[in-house]
């Protein structure tokens, strides 16, 4: 075995590392063993599963696009901020990420609820959020966008090269520099940040349940369907979990790919 950086670790490290791998991998192995493999294909083409898959894919796609459209400008802006203002904005952006999802749901409900502050005004304008896919998307964006913003912002900050300055001295406009110099260099971070926030959207549960409700084909995403089926039909819950597991695997591979490009 090759040790890339600090040489061979002390042997006792191995005990902790092995236990850590067990703690993380064993539950996944257990679930794969418990999986009703023979029934999985049948379950996954059932109406219940297809409806949940449809809702999840639709909402996650829209949420991820919104995360990128709004998150990239925020990350760029934050990376140029300094001092106290930067700290304040960073705290504000990080809070939704560390909040328990059910609290995120309550926060959304208090603000956009049908009989609350903004919800009532929007309702007058004919925009109904309650119990629609819009509510699901709002919940997903709220909890997932910070993942994109923080990872992209960190990459932008640590990028101390002078490419942008040189481009500026050559007469390029700020927009031209951003689009043609800065962002292309940030592509790996952007890809992994986007994948992370898409994964968080896909797994969103508490805020959706609290804020959007649960109706097949409209608001019942895969996690909500798993939650409901777990008592009455554990096999369906497991088969749907497999879908999330596979998608999680793809996302992690994608982010790992992004990291490889960056370190190369």
């Amino acid at each position: 075995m090759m040790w890339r950086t600090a040489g061979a670790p002390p042997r006792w490290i191995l005990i902790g590392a092995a236990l850590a791998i067990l703690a993380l991998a064993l539950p996944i192995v257990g679930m794969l063993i418990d999986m009703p493999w023979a029934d999985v294909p049948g379950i996954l083409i059932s109406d219940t599963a297809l409806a949940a898959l449809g809702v999840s894919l639709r909402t996650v796609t829209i949420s991820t696009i919104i995360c990128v459209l709004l998150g990239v400008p925020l990350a760029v802006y934050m990376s140029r901020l300094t001092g106290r203002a930067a700290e304040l904005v960073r705290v504000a952006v990080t809070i939704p990420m560390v909040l328990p999802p059910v609290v995120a749901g309550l926060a959304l409900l208090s603000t956009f609820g049908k009989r609350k502050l903004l919800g009532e005004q929007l309702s007058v304008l004919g925009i109904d959020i309650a119990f629609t896919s819009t509510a699901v998307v709002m919940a997903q964006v709220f909890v997932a966008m910070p993942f994109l913003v923080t990872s992209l912002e960190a990459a932008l900050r640590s990028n101390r090269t002078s490419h942008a300055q040189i481009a500026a001295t050559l007469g390029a406009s700020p927009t031209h520099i951003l689009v043609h110099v800065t962002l292309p260099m940030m592509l790996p971070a952007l890809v992994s940040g986007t994948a992370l926030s898409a994964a968080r959207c896909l797994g969103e549960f508490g805020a959706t349940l609290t804020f959007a409700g649960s109706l097949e084909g409209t608001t019942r995403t895969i996690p909500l369907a798993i939650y409901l089926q777990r008592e009455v039909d554990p096999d369906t819950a497991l088969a749907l979990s497999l879908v999330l597991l596979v998608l999680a695997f793809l996302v992690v591979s994608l982010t790992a790919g992004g990291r490889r490009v960056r370190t190369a």
Partner: protein
Amino acid sequence: MKRLLTMGAGLLVLGACSQGGAVEDRALTVMVAASMCDLAEAAADDIDADVTTVCSGSSDLVAQINAGASADILVTANQSTADRIIDGGLGTQLDVIATNELVMAVPAGNPAGIIGFDESVNGSDLIVCAPQVPCGEVSQQLAAANGLTLTPVSEEQSVTDVLGKITSGQGDVGLVYRTDANSAGDSVETIAIPLSEDFPNVYPLLVIGSSEADELEQTWIDAFTTGTGRERMEAIGFSIP
């Protein structure tokens, strides 16, 4: 050694109890469904005995007893969970002590103007339990009995989830049990549903590890289900058969 002997004597006394004999200083453990917790604690305060009240969801309580937890009396919030104890030979059902029925709960002020259990509920944001869970199954049966097909905007996992959507004002009308609606106080109003008494939710009472109540158990049962106890149950919306 003396302590050991005392413990042995205690065990003998407990053994005697399960044979049906009454002993003054015996402790009683009652397990009751969460919705009756306050009532059970009030009943325990009313009698002169050492009572431990354990409250949780019915299926949790049954799981605890199946796992070997010691209990003298069990009250569950539906028949199917009680049947798991009976089928396992762990206890005997004495009676159904109370029933609960579905009502419509609307946010205070009834913003959607719901007046009856008819097509108007489908025109508003209706919240029900998912058909997969017991309260949702009963909701569907009750709707069918009233010649109505429900078109909810959300199907929740439990009655409390339905109630949460109503107290927050997010939903216009929800189908919940009367006692749950009453527990929400002034934040919701209730509207009765025709024929709901034909689809009751029952609360069976079981004695655990014996086939009939001994004197001490009967004292608690009486305090819980008769006189003041009965009044307390009726006050929060239970019907007494």
